[in-house]
């Protein structure tokens, strides 16, 4: 049996006192990473702070700024939200790639990035979309670009006492197709061996990759060749991705396999979004 205190918060104002004064206080939303981690000894919370029914965290809306995904919004809710499906389908694909259907009924988009796995399936799409992470603490709110939110494996930009309130997909939305490709050992319910998001923006392209470095990365060498130097040979362009990544060998794949798969998937992504 696991041992901890459980506190349910339904008022955002009451959250911060618990977070700042308590020892080893972990926020609980979907719990799908947290409970597995507690069982495996990775996390040892003294207190679980259930935040999933705080109204501010349940926002899922589109307005002039873009699409706001509250911290308690599940992956299935995000996947089926029409503005996400219609305007940024690459993110719907990323959300849909996490775990199984039942997992996605609990797991949240915000939890996927807070867990800060370099292999997080929502990360590469969010990097391509220049998503903004809205953070709330007792001193107020602040926003950081998604690229600054991931700081290392399992590490994010949150300070003690802070929580992610929401993720903003800012307008303007991309013009053109976006795809997310995931290479994994099994067809579903596996972490990404590599994950590649390729998003067209008019004549330009943005590419982001997961599970090939300490954080997700943008393939800036490839982007520069295509966007600035007019490279139209996608095979040549994809080869440049080797300069953007530094994969390691682990149980999901070797370093060499990751280099190979990323190159293949970047080329495929360019073909499918930018035209053959």
């Amino acid at each position, binding site marked *: *049996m*696991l*041992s*901890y*205190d*459980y506190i*349910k918060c339904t008022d955002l104002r009451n959250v911060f006192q618990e977070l700042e004064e308590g020892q080893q206080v972990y926020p*609980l939303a979907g*719990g*799908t990473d947290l*409970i*597995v981690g507690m*069982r*495996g000894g990775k996390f040892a919370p003294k207190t*679980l702070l*259930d935040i999933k029914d705080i109204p501010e965290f349940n926002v899922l809306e589109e307005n002039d700024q873009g699409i706001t995904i509250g911290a308690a919004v599940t992956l*299935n809710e995000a996947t089926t939200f029409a503005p996400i499906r219609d305007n940024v389908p690459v993110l719907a694909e990323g959300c849909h790639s996490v*775990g*199984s*259907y*039942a*997992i996605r*009924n*609990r797991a949240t988009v915000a939890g996927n990035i807070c867990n800060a796995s370099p292999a997080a399936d929502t990360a590469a799409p969010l990097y391509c979309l220049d998503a903004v992470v809205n953070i709330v603490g007792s001193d107020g709110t602040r926003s950081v670009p998604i690229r600054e939110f991931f700081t290392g494996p399992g590490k994010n930009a949150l300070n003690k006492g802070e929580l992610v309130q929401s993720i903003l997909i800012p307008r303007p939305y991309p013009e053109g197709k976006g795809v997310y490709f995931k290479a994994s050992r099994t067809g*579903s*319910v596996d972490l990404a061996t590599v994950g590649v998001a390729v998003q067209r923006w008019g004549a330009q392209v943005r590419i982001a990759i997961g599970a090939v470095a300490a954080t997700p990365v943008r393939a800036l060498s490839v982007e520069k060749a295509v966007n600035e130097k007019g490279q139209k040979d996608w095979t040549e362009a994809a080869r440049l991705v080797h300069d953007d990544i530094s994969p390691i060998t682990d149980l999901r794949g070797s370093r060499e396999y990751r280099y190979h798969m990323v190159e293949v998937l970047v080329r495929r992504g360019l073909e499918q979004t930018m035209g053959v």
Partner: protein
Amino acid sequence: MSEKITINFTVNGEKEQREAVVGHTLLRFIRNELHLTGVKEGCGIGECGACVVLLDGKPVNSCLVLAVELDGRELVTIEGLSKNGELDRVQQAFIDHAAFQCGYCTPGMILSARALLDRKPNPTDADIDEALSGNLCRCGAYQEIRGAIKASSGK
């Protein structure tokens, strides 16, 4: 720590008030406190789907939900599907199609299928595969399971 919290919830249509141990999962609570043993523990880490139940109508892995999180929610287990002694049509279709061998995965499979048919009465093969993506069958009865779900669709 054996701290308990009083929770109010609905299980298979009946309102209940119980004490839930803070350190227990929903899976353990359903089996040991509610004595509904149709729900099974397989992997305990959300990968096999043997513990799937419907929480507010949605399939979830009860091994990854805390018992105290049941407060204010509506729970349906495999025991809640039959009405007046008559099996749900998904249950009957699983029998008609021999969609199991050992049966350990079956409660989770049927509940995932029930939820799918509730939101999409005429699912495609791809819809079925997605809905059951978190339900593993070690006996390998997948073809029969898909057949049973197709046979119970569109009604």
